[in-house]
């Protein structure tokens, strides 16, 4: 099997064996869910319900007029207990709609799509995607309909379905590719039709050989040109820019988007959820996540309602074998540490990892070994950018392309001196952007 990949990057211990073989388990509805008014990259939403209202599963409860936004739907039927500030897994605290489960299981569904996707108007599909509240479920949570709407003058020739799942420990996409394949391929057809791509590719890393074979089998007699592309297991293979480079040999220009090189990329789980909505009419109200690490009693891949609280998930997993010192939402390379179990699952939650220990790597001065340069998938000089950030030389950092950084963390992973390189680069990016917007 010929494997494709991109230059540089790192080979990581992927730790997927703990949960990769465990089928998706549906978690029972919790008594309460909490839905933050921001769960996507873009403008915050306004609630469409008030305290005391009853809501049905699938009912739209928050939306915004902004184009770059995705509505939120109630994941279970119940009563709005309040709209209040709540712990948010990536933003500290944020306004959220709290719904108490009434156990009635009442539902409100959209009209399903006919199976003849290729005959439908792309605009109708984009509206369908937007109304369904879809965002990239890989973690970046960018609204899907925006990606599927190429601006005037740009044309899309290729669609890539991202099944790389390059973050260690996470296996939810792996299971979705195996168990939700039909829905995923239906979702793929919808997205391909919506953006006008001529050809589809499904990129899967070769540590998921079962997925490569299974998906390739189901692609026989597929209505549109599509192929599975086996990828070499290397981090950050799932980064859009590097997936495009690996599969099509195209480089997204600095500051550009995949559509600048005629490509749209979306996550496999986004496609599966979209395919499910096309069949059932139920919008994005649940997702599959991985719960793993070294101190959870019951690890695995779980289908959970959005808004379910971490503490309820931990209870469902029968608690801890030892108290965790570090809890991460997402993968260990880019995930965010959590300070409480009160945070809800949001659309961008690919999983939670629980670790007994939080070791700290000893820090030394930079010895100029060049590992960060040799591994940076964007061909940056992280050692230099890190130093410029430390000395607040942000204009120089911009000249040295700090905005190209995709924040994958490869530099900080390989650094033998334990320097928090990617953190410094993010800081520099933030400052450069702030100054660009006219901040002082």
């Amino acid at each position, binding site marked *: 099997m010929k494997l494709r990949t991109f230059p540089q990057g*790192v080979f990581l*211990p992927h730790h997927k064996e703990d949960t990769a073989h465990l089928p998706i388990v549906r978690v029972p509805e919790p008594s309460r869910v909490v839905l933050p008014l921001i769960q996507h990259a873009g403008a915050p939403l306004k609630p469409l319900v008030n305290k005391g209202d009853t809501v049905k599963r699938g009912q739209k409860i928050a939306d915004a007029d902004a184009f770059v936004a995705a509505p939120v739907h109630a994941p279970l039927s119940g009563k709005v207990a309040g709209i209040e500030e709540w712990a948010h897994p990536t933003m500290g605290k944020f306004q959220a709609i709290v719904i108490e489960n009434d156990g009635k299981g009442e539902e409100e569904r959209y009209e399903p799509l006919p199976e003849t996707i290729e005959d439908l108007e792309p605009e109708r599909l984009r509206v369908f995607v937007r109304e369904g509240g879809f965002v990239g479920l890989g973690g970046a949570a960018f609204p899907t309909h925006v990606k599927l709407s190429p601006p005037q003058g740009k044309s899309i020739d290729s669609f890539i379905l991202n099944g790389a799942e390059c973050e*260690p420990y996470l296996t939810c996409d792996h299971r979705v590719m195996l168990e939700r394949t039909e829905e995923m391929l239906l979702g793929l057809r919808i997205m391909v039709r919506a953006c006008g791509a001529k050809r589809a590719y499904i990129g899967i890393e070769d540590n998921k050989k079962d997925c490569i074979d299974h998906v390739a089998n189901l692609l026989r007699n597929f209505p549109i040109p599509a192929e599975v592309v086996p990828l070499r297991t290397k981090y950050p293979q799932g980064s859009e*820019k590097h997936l495009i480079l690996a599969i099509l040999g195209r*480089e*997204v*220009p*600095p500051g*550009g988007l995949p559509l600048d090189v005629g490509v749209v990329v979306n996550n496999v789980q986004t496609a599966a959820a979209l395919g499910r909505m096309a069949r059932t009419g139920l919008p994005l109200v649940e997702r599959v996540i991985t719960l793993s690490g070294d101190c959870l009693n019951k690890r695995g891949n779980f289908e959970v309602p959005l808004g379910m609280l971490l503490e309820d998930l*931990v209870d469902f997993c029968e*608690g801890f074998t030892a*108290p*965790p*010192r*570090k*809890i*991460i939402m997402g993968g*260990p*390379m*880019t*995930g*965010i*540490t*959590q*300070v409480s*179990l009160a945070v809800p699952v949001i659309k961008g939650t690919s999983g939670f990892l629980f*670790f007994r220990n*939080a070791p*700290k*790597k*000893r820090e*030394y*001065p*930079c*010895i*100029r*070994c*060049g*590992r960060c*340069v*040799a591994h940076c*998938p*964007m*061909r940056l*000089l992280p*050692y*230099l950018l890190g130093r410029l950030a430390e000395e607040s030389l942000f204009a120089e950092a911009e000249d040295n*392309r700090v905005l*190209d950084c995709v924040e994958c*963390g490869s530099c*900080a*992973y*390989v*650094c*033998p*001196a*334990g320097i*928090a390189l*990617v*953190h410094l680069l993010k800081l520099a990016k933030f400052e450069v952007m702030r100054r660009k917007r006219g901040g002082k």
Partner: protein
Amino acid sequence: MEELRLVTSAPPHLKSPVTVPWIMQQVVFALLPAAVWGVVFFGPRLALPPLVLSVLACVGFEALDCLAFRRSLTVGDWSAVVTGMLLGLSLPPGCPFWIPLVGGGVAILLGKQMFGGIGQNIFNPALVGRAVLLISWPKIMATWYVRPAFVLQPAQAATYATPVDVVTSATPLGIVKAYGYPAVWETGPNLLFRLFLGLIPGCIGEISALLLLLGFLYLLLRKVVQWDIPLFYALGLSLVALLARQNPLFHLFAGGAIMGACFMATDYTTSPMTSRGRMIFGFGAGALTGIIRWLGGYPEGVTFGILTMNALVPLLDRMLPRRFGVKKA
């Protein structure tokens, strides 16, 4: 549920197991075969004192510097041990005891600590120490003791009134400088073979190209160094040798070329950060080594060749790699 004491930290939460001391220890391991061969070939009496004193001097002076300037002790990073090994291995066997002490002091204090310690220095500390010794005590640094059995046939040795412990000899590069390039080929058969294995007079740890290359191979396999600097060093040196109408293999295996290419020029701190920079750096250092040997006053050019290129590293580091998403840089 009991109260959790959770730690927050910036991603990535995974870190590679490679650390600074581990890297330095690998370099020490890689130098051990050549060091052991030096002790075997020259005998412990000639080879051990310079080696041991050099390591002790480097570690000791770094510790003293840290104490004197009230900085936290840095000798635990093992980099002073590497400097001491490199310096000791590039000293002539049988040199006076104070040579490694002075060399180590200069290497660590002037070459490294004055710039701010590990990672901050412009010039390779071991080569700074060696250069100062070469310039200050040229005669000591060009006196090559070997065991008598190496140069004297038993019949010859019997002609001496009293048995001798050691005798001096000339290095191949010394012969080239003193008597011309053809003369070195008249010193005996299989010259290249003897150079490659290390059956020649020379610095303690620089004589066996084979063992140094084995050590370098170890570093390559452990992903501690990359191949680009040594390869381009060899290319630069070979090109100059060809221009001088001399055998490139002779120049690669004689003197400190392999040691310089594989262990001195590859020093992280004093070599460029990008692959392109390292290729230019290696080629330049190799070519300068050859030019000094061919046209210069010293028989050997490794030290000054590499030191000169060290000075160009900040410039080479200004070359950025091709930008992602842009056709030409």
